[in-house]
């Protein structure tokens, strides 16, 4: 039962990550591979604040969001000069730089040793240690982020982002500030990505850089694409599917060592299939929808 709850918590983390990436990748068309970096910034911020300076969980969330947003702002100054595949290569480079800072800045992050002993979350004098309260807490954040993103997508700003991803020059010509909207969506998406980071650090109580590699970024991006760009519910279902997939493989009798690789092979295959058919996510592939709205 503990293990099932652990899986549910993981689904919550990946839902938050992929939905926040969906804001920049799905709505604004900024396919970024830096997301694991922002996730890591959230985790490291709260880990350093709580173990070295004795901060509690609640003030470290806004701080992590601020730091992550600030770094995203710097990143957007660089990356938004490029578009399409150069944007992906550029964000990939930034992801490698962020990883190498986490891995090598010994004084701050303790490098590959990681930061152990992150305290559990305190909630009105009640310690969130066991799985069920933690799951409820994560669910709360999932709901908050989901509602926030849903409202953004229905707002004028969300429509502007969709317009920009469809035709940048046209949206500029009707007076939309393309650069500002892109920057804001990129920063917002990075800030939201730091929330699952802080939760993750308090949940696992030990973090090291290997959780925030390029592969993790590719994994989150795959969730978004498999779930469908701009489809928030799709991101949730895709996270649930990809988190539960190794368990399903184990259930049919595949050994542990193979199941992890098999999951990656399967999502690689799905990614290729989605890109080849040109449907927006697996849902459209299954229902074979006629309207080919995908921008990818």
């Amino acid at each position: 039962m503990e293990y099932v709850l652990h899986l549910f918590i993981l689904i919550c983390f990946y839902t938050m990550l992929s939905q926040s990436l969906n804001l920049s990748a799905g709505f604004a068309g900024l396919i970024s591979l830096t997301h694991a970096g922002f996730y890591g910034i959230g985790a490291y911020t709260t880990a350093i604040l709580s173990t070295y300076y004795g901060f509690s969980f609640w003030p470290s969330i806004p701080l992590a969001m601020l730091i992550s947003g600030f770094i995203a702002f710097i990143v957007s100054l660089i990356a938004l000069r490029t578009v399409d595949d150069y944007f992906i290569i550029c964000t990939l480079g930034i992801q490698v730089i962020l990883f190498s800072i986490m891995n090598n800045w010994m004084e701050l992050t303790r490098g590959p040793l990681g930061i152990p002993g992150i305290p559990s979350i305190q909630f009105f004098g009640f310690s969130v240690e066991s799985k069920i309260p933690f799951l409820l807490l994560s669910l709360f954040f999932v709901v908050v982020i989901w509602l926030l993103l849903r409202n953004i997508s229905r707002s004028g700003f969300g429509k502007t982002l969709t317009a920009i991803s469809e035709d940048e020059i046209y949206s500029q010509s009707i007076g939309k500030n393309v650069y500002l909207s892109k920057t804001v969506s990129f920063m917002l998406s990075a800030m939201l990505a730091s929330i699952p980071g802080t939760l993750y650090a308090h949940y696992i109580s030990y973090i090291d850089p290997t959780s925030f590699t390029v592969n993790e970024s590719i994994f989150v991006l795959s969730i978004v694409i498999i779930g469908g760009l701009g489809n928030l519910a799709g991101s949730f279902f895709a996270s649930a599917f990809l988190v539960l997939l190794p368990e399903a493989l184990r259930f049919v009798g595949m050994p542990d060592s193979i199941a992890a690789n098999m999951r990656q092979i399967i999502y690689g295959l799905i990614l290729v299939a989605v890109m080849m058919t040109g449907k927006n996510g697996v849902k459209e592939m299954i229902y074979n929808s006629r309207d080919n709205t995908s921008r990818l």
Partner: protein
Amino acid sequence: MSQVFTNISLSALLYLLIASSYSLIYYPTKFFHIAHAAVVTSAAYLVYLFSIQLSIPFPLAIVDGIATAALIGMFCELLVYRPMRKRNRPPLAYMIASIGLYVLLQNTISLYFGDDTKVINTAEISVGHQIFGAYITTIQIITICVSLVLFVGVNLFLHFTATGKSIRAVSSNPELCNIYGISSNKVILIAFTLGSALAAIAGILSAMDTNMTPTFGFNLLLYGVVAMIIGGVGSTRGLLAGSLLVATAQHLAAFYLDTKWMDAVTYVILILFLIWKPLGFSGKRLKKVEV
């Protein structure tokens, strides 16, 4: 200091080989074929499979490895990219599909061979030869010679043979080529085969020098891509300058800071170039940068 110089030229030539294999594919197709990294890795692992697990003689195993890796590159084109071209998919879709292909191929390798470090160079470890006060091993000398010969060979091929000229023709305008009876599909397939074979050679050389893990091709490829972008896409001298710059920066960082900052320095250079000189050394307009 002469050791640093030797290391710089060694890495520069290796990156040059990767960059030219990569640009051979990039010129006619105009998208980032990330799965190229898996081709680099798979070549080294295939040599391991053939020579150590199936005990085929080493030279033959290398030839087999290169041929099989070239086949993998061909299959990527035939099974994935060509159907996508037929459906007129937007440019970004190819790159995402190639990321998917990379994940697929890399994990197939991990699944079969395991994630631990493998050694294909069974020769005895020796101090190496001493040239101008710097130590260099036999395999490093081979790497330098092979890379130089292949780089010159690729450029001669692109400029003086009919096939090479048609690759350049497709790079500049695929539709016009089709009108003139050059099948762009066929040319792209040739480019994929040759590019993958070159990448396989680079992967095998690198694995013999420094051993291998299932992900070593990814870093190697990214250095090559960075060299290509810095150099400016579509220029031979640019490729040379780009790989030299990347290798120099990496080894100076290793010399003055620490080897662990080599990766970060590479990408900082890439970013600086994207900010101040988005067209690379050659100055050819890329159209995609700077909208």
